């Protein structure tokens, strides 16, 4: 009996309030711009905040009402961007160059570089409050995965070396991990660029050596070897100008500390161009393009040869050769 009256009463209350609300929703209905609805449906809906607006709905409103470019969303797929541009009658300006997060640290997890065993809260921000983190290098990745927790797209996993591994396909460059990292070692770089200086320590060479085997000591060898002036040394730290870098890997091979990495090719030792002589017609294009005087020849019709000692494997001649007879061979 009691249960029936309870059900009846709650049902009655629910019905009455439902009726009032349904009446009110018609009486006080607000017509929303249907274009905003379209924009919301085509935006990713992850509400990651990478655009700087409060969630996808905020960006949708800004796109429709203030004419903010659709490409403000770093996450949106090309197909949806095109659809949205058509739906809103806006020009599809194309996406910005796709970016991806890159961890500028490759510190080894060796015990000799550990300052102390941290057993507190598993959070990087908390860990650096204790004597600036558990590692001797003040700039090393804390390794507790605050970035992994911040990533909404599952693009970050903590690797075996107490360093985050970023899935550059999944990464949408929303920048949440960049803000989550208390050491500021995550940077957004062009997704396609593969050569990175995996260090963020501005300390002087000897100080870096004391706390890390693979930190940048600011020796400047990379800046010297780079034929494209893409590397400068700033605050004892090599910095790559990604606009100039052609990913030849010369600096990767040269770096004495193995700080500069070529993504996807661990243990990369450099490469050298090799000319398939029978196919060479002696057009001198490779001779002209080489910035290192590493190509023998120069008089037309004379077959070219590479001088291995001078070649850094930048690949400029490979691109230029009309007969496609130059290949890059990795060094032994």
């Amino acid at each position: 009996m009691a249960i029936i009256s309870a059900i009846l009463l709650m049902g009655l209350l629910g019905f009455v309030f439902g009726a009032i609300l349904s009446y009110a929703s018609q009486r006080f209905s607000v017509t929303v711009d249907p274009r905003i609805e379209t924009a919301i449906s085509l935006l990713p809906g992850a509400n990651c905040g990478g655009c700087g607006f409060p969630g996808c709905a905020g960006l949708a409103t800004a796109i429709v009402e203030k004419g903010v470019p659709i490409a403000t969303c770093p996450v949106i797929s090309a197909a949806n961007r095109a659809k949205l541009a058509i739906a809103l009658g806006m020009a599809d300006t194309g996406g910005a160059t796709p970016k991806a997060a890159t961890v500028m640290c490759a510190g080894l997890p060796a015990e000799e570089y550990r300052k102390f065993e941290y057993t507190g809260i598993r959070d990087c921000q908390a860990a650096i409050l204790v004597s600036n983190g558990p590692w001797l290098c003040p700039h090393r990745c804390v390794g507790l995965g605050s970035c992994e927790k911040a990533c909404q797209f599952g693009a970050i996993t903590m690797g075996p070396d107490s360093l985050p591994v970023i899935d550059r396909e999944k990464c949408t460059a929303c920048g949440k991990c960049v803000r989550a990292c208390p050491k500021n070692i995550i940077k957004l770089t062009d997704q396609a660029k593969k050569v990175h200086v995996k260090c963020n320590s501005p300390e002087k060479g000897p100080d870096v050596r004391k706390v890390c085997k693979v930190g940048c000591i600011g020796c400047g060898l990379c800046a010297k070897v780079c034929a494209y002036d893409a590397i400068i040394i700033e605050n004892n730290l090599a910095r790559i100008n990604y606009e100039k870098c052609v990913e030849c890997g010369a600096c990767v091979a040269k770096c004495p500390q193995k700080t500069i990495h070529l993504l996807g090719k661990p243990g990369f030792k450099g490469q050298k161009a090799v000319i398939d002589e029978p196919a060479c017609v002696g057009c001198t294009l490779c001779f002209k393009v080489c910035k290192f005087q590493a190509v023998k020849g120069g008089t037309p019709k004379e077959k070219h040869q590479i001088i291995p000692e001078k070649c850094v494997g930048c690949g400029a001649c490979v691109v230029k050769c009309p007969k496609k007879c130059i290949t890059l061979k990795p060094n032994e």
Partner: protein
Amino acid sequence: MTGGIFSIFIVAIFIENFVLNQILGICPFVGVSNKIDSAVGMGLAVTFVMVLAGAVTWSIQEFFLVPFRLEYLQTLSFILVIAALVQFVEMVIKKTVPTLYQALGVYLPLITTNCAVLGVALLNVRKNYSLVESAVNSLGGGLGFFFALILMAGIRERLEVADTPVAMRGAPITFITAGLMAIAFYGFAGLV
């Protein structure tokens, strides 16, 4: 009688201030006290919801729950009332004052979970208030929230330009301010 009602009113506003004395409804108190404008809007919305909720929940308690001996459904039915009222208020504000709707943002639907509103409904029942007394207590509670919010917003607008130590900026100084305000409101104890 009138004296009793007046004292209920004063007690609800100052002595048993929901925010500063009973520590209820802290979320909007901290969240919406950035600017006086939105604080006024939020305060009025909460007051409106509180008064209506106080009256409606009293009626439900008196005419449905007690006669059918369903007092155990108190929390459930009260929350139903509050949720419906908040939804209603949201619709009205969205239609009539879109700028206020924008300013309140997520805190408007959060009035549903503002425990001050549920608190006032439950306290009305616990104190055996009549309909008028309930309404007055709710109005006082709402106004008390309103005042606390406005005072806080005023202080925070000045704190924006004050030379606050870096570590104290933002949330920390807000909490300290709230604590000091609560201590100040203790001064009203014994007024009635």
